[in-house]
């Protein structure tokens, strides 16, 4: 008898507690009107950044395409007149992309970066294939100072060996004199 009363009381208590939830704050964020806060390092839409001089950072090394677990990146190396490498085309298929961020980790020049933009919806599946013109942004992204060709020892037109930042002049290894 006591256990029955206890059970009834327990159930009634549950009812009251659930009813009291009517006055609680709702957890849902009404999305299109209220945008959710996303941390700066959120992994969303992928962009290609430029260096501080406004040149493309991507040197078409293909590391991002190699590391991509779903193989959604494809690009073709080209070479400019001054000796810089650049991607002739750079294509990301966002219908395959899993936003793992491995491409960003692999990139030696910080060219490819993930941004906190997740609104990629399209009515036509073909529109999810982004070409270079869709990916390239005008800014520098997360690493504003970095410029690969100013730091790397690679010689290009207008910047011979030894002219890069913190780079000593090249040594003639066939000469014994110090």
């Amino acid at each position, binding site marked *: 008898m006591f256990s029955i009363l206890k059970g009834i009381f327990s159930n009634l208590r549950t009812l009251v507690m659930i009813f009291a939830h009517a006055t609680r704050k709702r957890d*849902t964020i009404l999305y299109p009107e209220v945008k959710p806060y996303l941390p700066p390092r959120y992994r969303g839409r992928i962009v290609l950044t430029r260096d501080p001089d406004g040149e493309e950072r991507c040197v078409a090394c293909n590391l991002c395409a190699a590391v991509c677990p779903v193989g959604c990146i494809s690009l073709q190396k080209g070479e400019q007149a001054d000796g810089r490498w650049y991607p002739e085309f750079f294509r990301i298929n966002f219908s395959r992309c899993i936003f793992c961020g491995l491409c960003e980790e692999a990139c030696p020049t910080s060219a490819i970066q993930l941004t906190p933009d997740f609104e990629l919806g399209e009515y036509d599946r073909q529109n999810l294939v982004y070409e270079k013109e869709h990916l390239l942004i005008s800014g520098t992204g997360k690493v504003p100072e970095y410029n690969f060709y100013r730091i790397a020892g690679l010689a290009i037109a207008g910047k011979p060996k030894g002219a890069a930042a913190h780079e000593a002049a090249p040594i003639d290894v066939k000469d014994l004199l110090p």
Partner: protein
Amino acid sequence: MSGWTPSLTAALIAGLKALVLLLGLVSAAALLIWGERRLLALWQDRYGPNRVGPFGLLQVMADMIKIFFKEDWVPAFVDRPVFLLAPLLAMTTALLVFVLIPVAPGWGVAPDLNVGVLVFLALAGLGVYGAMLGGMSSNSKYALLGGLRSAAQMLSYEVFMGIALMGVVIQAGSFRLDRIVAAQQHLWFIIPQCCGFFAFSLAAVASVHRFPFDQPETEQELVAGYHTEYSGMKFGMFFVAEYVGIVVVSALLTTLFLGGWHGPLADRLPWMGFIWFALKTLFFIMMFILLRGALPRPRYDQIMALGWKFCLPLSLGNLLITAAVVLTGTTGV
């Protein structure tokens, strides 16, 4: 106009009133689909459907358009005639009970039926056929188990459902629902008949297969129970029948235990009576949804034990005591 007689006019008016009540009931049941989702969401700290139309009210329309255009597929392995009959049966028995209920003074299809309560019990008994035949004719294990559970649950709950109602009938001295309402002018039956109310409300929840007693459906074990094999509008019929059942049973609880349309001003203004009736019914509907939102589902044997070991003795005792009190004449009508 030779055939035009006053009785014909009266019949026409009665028919129109019945039509209004039917439309009101069905639209209330349809809106309840939206209302339930909103209320459940409210109690779970969510919003629920709030996009289509104001407050998401047009969600019902969207759902209806969707379900009308769904493919209504009858599996090849079912017992076809019975399979087609079952949802109709479920819907009809749910709708027919509303005939008995006086929604306001002078409004109601047949509140003066002199076997009102008995008709309700009979229709509740028939209502189980909708679920049971649906489950049997589907020729599928889950549906069969659902139908079986539905039949067993209804059998054991109908026993004390009738007995729990008899206390009310004894106090009111009539099976007519309008007399029962009239007998509650000064004191709602929920107070002298609290045990009967308790037992009957449990049986009422069980009779429409609502939450703690939704053994025939039990999504987690039986896919969807007796309507597993149904699709399209036939599933929709079962679905709406459940909500019609909720509205009807809430209206019945109001009528039998909460004084029907009685309330302040109801005697002078008939529409106030309807408002009181609607408010009380809404309260019970809300309780139905709250039950679903709050309680876990008991095991099948626990349901049976509750019915036979607790509710049946409770309602029997209630009947005995009510009868004794009425016979000795300390209260009564």
